């Protein structure tokens, strides 16, 4: 049975892969996210609009209205309420989806904490944009500032990856009872059309079983109190359990991605190494769409490699060390940031240093590149490479310095 619906990548007439039980469509990133939510048969969608997330919730509303998706869709009064409602429905046993961005995510901060501490599974898309002063362009300061809320975070490079990651995320989230944030880049991804392979419902159903009730589930026959005052000894124990489960994320994410590849034919890893070997002198560390630009650039530099981070929280330390294994100790890492969190170093460099501490003593250079939606064209990547090789400084603003 599984063999029958198993999808494989077939080499077609041209070089593009083709996948069985998929439909090829041209979709913007936001619509790909909405398709993923539909395919995962989400039951509850609380919504509140914010640019550039809007087309996700608009499309979902349309799907519910025309019967493509059997979900309860509610226009809430704020993102705080969106997440508070998400929490209620997840406790009620529903598979929950919503999407937000920037101010919306900041506004929901309190409830993000509550959801992860309640150990509720759900998947939420965040379309990254920074804080007021008003700016709607691509920036990851919103989600990266929420990296310590106990949510799992993935950053997608392409719309296809976002769609596929959402499907995998429900499985991961429901296995561990940890919520997942799937992050898209504003406009470069949310509003840019790509060729997308949309899997059939049959294929997704075979991969992703319906959500099963866990311990945090309102059971009318066996009433419980959820989330009341927890004394220190118990809180400590709860946190210990959450920590134990957080430590399973990296390996389980890999396992789920492998299973996904068997069903859908597309391979994903928590971190991806491009051209990293004994010959590599410099590695650019990137997340999301900047990766695509960097991929193109490094092709022209035989001694420059690329490390893409797809899973960001919990930080995939094992994967990063593995990816850098063949890299000589005198090579340099250049972290490319699309965030500014008020500290000297950006979030990527902070995390990379933590991951490598005690294991590798590689020189790291931090490059603020795409903050506030500033475009990161190939020229900026080239500038980074040039500077890293010829004038290495600990921290620089790629297009200022």
């Amino acid at each position, binding site marked *: 049975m599984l063999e029958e619906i198993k999808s494989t990548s077939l080499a077609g007439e041209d070089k593009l892969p083709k996948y069985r039980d998929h439909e090829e469509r041209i979709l913007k990133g936001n619509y790909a996210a909405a398709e993923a939510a539909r395919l995962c048969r989400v039951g509850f969608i609380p919504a509140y609009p914010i640019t550039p997330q809007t087309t996700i919730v608009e499309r979902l509303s349309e799907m519910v209205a025309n019967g493509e998706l059997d979900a*309860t869709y509610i226009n809430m*009064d704020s993102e705080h309420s969106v997440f*508070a*409602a998400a929490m209620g429905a997840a406790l009620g046993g529903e598979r*929950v989806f919503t999407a937000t961005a920037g101010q919306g995510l900041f506004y929901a901060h309190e*409830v993000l904490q509550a959801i992860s501490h309640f150990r509720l599974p759900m998947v939420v898309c965040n379309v990254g944009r920074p804080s007021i002063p008003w700016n709607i362009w691509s920036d990851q300061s919103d989600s990266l500032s929420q990296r310590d809320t106990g949510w799992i975070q993935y950053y997608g490079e392409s719309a296809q990856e976002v769609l596929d990651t959402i499907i995998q995320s429900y499985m991961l989230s429901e296995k561990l009872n940890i919520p997942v944030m799937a992050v898209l880049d504003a406009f470069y991804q949310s509003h840019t059309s790509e060729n997308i392979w949309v899997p059939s419902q049959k294929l997704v159903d075979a991969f992703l079983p319906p959500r099963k009730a866990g311990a945090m589930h309102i059971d009318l026959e066996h009433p419980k109190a959820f989330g009341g005052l927890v004394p220190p000894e118990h809180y400590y124990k709860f946190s210990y359990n959450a920590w134990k489960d957080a430590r399973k994320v990296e390996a389980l994410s890999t396992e789920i991605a492998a299973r996904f590849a068997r069903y859908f034919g597309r391979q994903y890893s928590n971190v991806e190494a491009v051209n990293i070997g004994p010959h590599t002198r410099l590695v650019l560390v990137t997340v999301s769409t900047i990766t695509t630009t960097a991929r193109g650039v490094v092709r022209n530099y035989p001694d420059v490699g690329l490390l893409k981070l797809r899973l960001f929280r919990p930080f995939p330390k094992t994967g990063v060390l593995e990816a850098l294994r063949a890299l000589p100790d005198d090579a340099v890492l250049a972290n490319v940031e699309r965030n500014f969190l008020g500290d000297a170093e950006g979030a990527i460099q902070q995390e990379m240093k933590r991951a490598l501490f005690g294991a590798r003593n590689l020189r790291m250079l931090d490059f603020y590149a795409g903050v506030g939606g500033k475009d990161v064209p190939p020229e900026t990547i080239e500038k980074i490479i040039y500077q890293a090789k010829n004038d290495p400084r600990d921290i620089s603003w790629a297009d200022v310095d």
Partner: protein
Amino acid sequence: MSPTQEFLIKDEKVYSGALSCRGCAWSLLARHLSSILGDNTVYVVPACCFSIISGPYPLNGLKGNIVHTVFAGASATATGVRAALDRQGKADTTVVVLAGDGGTFDIGLQALSGAAARGENILYVVNNNGAYMNTGIQTSTATPYGAVTTTNPGGGYKRTWPKDLMGIIAAHNLPYAATCSLAYLDDLRRKVRKAADTRGFRLLMVDGPCPPGHKTDPALSISIARLAVETKLFPLFEIERQRYTLNYIPDKEVPVTECLKYQGRFKHLFNEENGYILEEIQEHADHYWRQLQTKAELSWNGKEKEKT
């Protein structure tokens, strides 16, 4: 109202050992509510004294599911719980929010307004004790004019009038909203039943005695609650789709001072130089009552609604 046995709790749904102060409204209110609403009920509780009273983990003081949630999010969390239950064919399960005045008049007002305007099938019960009691009696927008709290930068007592929550709620065109007093249990229990039997968003506001917060003798909680109704400081009324019904008309005029004098939070008002404040409070209560009377008259085409 003729005396009945209706105020008796026949089916106790609250375990003994509540963690409230003596004379607290929360415990008595929870007992009456739960005895009427029964087992098929999910309670959603934002931060308030009841979050503590209902018992720390792993205890549950109520024989029902309690979902504790963030302070501002009770109505939203209840919306999610409601949606989940409805999707699973449990539309007959009652979803109840139990919130304080701070969680209702202030931080939870937006979520409350949203849920009310959407017509969520939720029963919202607010225990109005007129301050943030759980955190130590700080001023809320429900705090009465003239009351002392622990945060009165304006000079020792509150110098603004409390919000008219029932007016705000009425403007949402709810199928049912009412004020209730623990001193009038027949009326309270009838209203809980009526609210439980109504579909849509319903709100009950209960006058909440709080001895430490009001600086009162715990033994007088119910007597003071009765005086609040008798003095028209806390009139008992119902609103059905903006139509008002007065449920209790005191047969004699009792001045507000009769209720205020038992409460230490108003003690300073009885100093001679503050006499004018007492007059203002009397005037405000009289005016609010006249407004209610007028609304009640207009509501049912000039005829007072038949008493239910």
